[in-house]
């Protein structure tokens, strides 16, 4: 399985956004709940379009929601 270096703080943002459920967020960006679960757990890196949609739901910039954190550099 390829390593995903994209992490997100969607879970915290949902909590601070009237405790929005995963399903509500999924409906807002037109994906399945499973996709939101996978993104939150760092098991899937969303497309740019989906990342922007999610950031827009929380009224945040992309980098406030997602971050790129390579744990090991290829040499």
């Amino acid at each position, binding site marked *: *399985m390829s390593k995903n270096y994209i992490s997100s703080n969607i879970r915290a943002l949902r909590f601070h956004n009237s405790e929005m459920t995963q399903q509500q967020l999924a409906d807002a960006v037109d994906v399945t709940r*499973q996709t939101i679960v*996978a993104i939150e757990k760092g098991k*899937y890196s969303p*497309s740019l379009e989906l990342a922007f949609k999610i950031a827009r739901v929380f009224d945040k910039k992309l980098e406030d929601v997602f971050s790129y954190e390579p744990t090991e550099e290829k040499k």
Partner: protein
Amino acid sequence: MEKLSLAEKRPLFSLLTTIITFVTYYWYVSELYAEKILDLQGQIEFWSAVILILIPVFVVSKIILMIILTIINTIITGDKTRFDKLDEFGKLIDIKATRNFYHVFIVGFLVFLSSLAFSFNVFISFNIILFTILVSAIIADLSEFYYMQSGV
């Protein structure tokens, strides 16, 4: 244990449908084959028809399953999401599962060709390709479930 989501249930139900459809179809075909006395040409025509018919049978059974599951899910949960709805994550998983399907199918097809090259019984050769289709379909469904759980 965490409750399975709709997206995770789909490959499991698909797997169940694949097995039930194949077993029922194979049982019917075997009964039909046992009643017939066929020469070599007749056997080749019979088993070729069996494989050709199996593909639309699989497609139709999957479509019926998705319709039934969507109806049942809507009645139980009130959620009108279609069972076959795929978003970008689902599509990526679908592509990877299909890739695994083809990998297994190619191996089975090569075994099938080898069995013909080494003059195996027609019954055995065509059963190799039939069961290759079954195993490939099972691998695709299991792959889909695995990728849903572990991510891509």
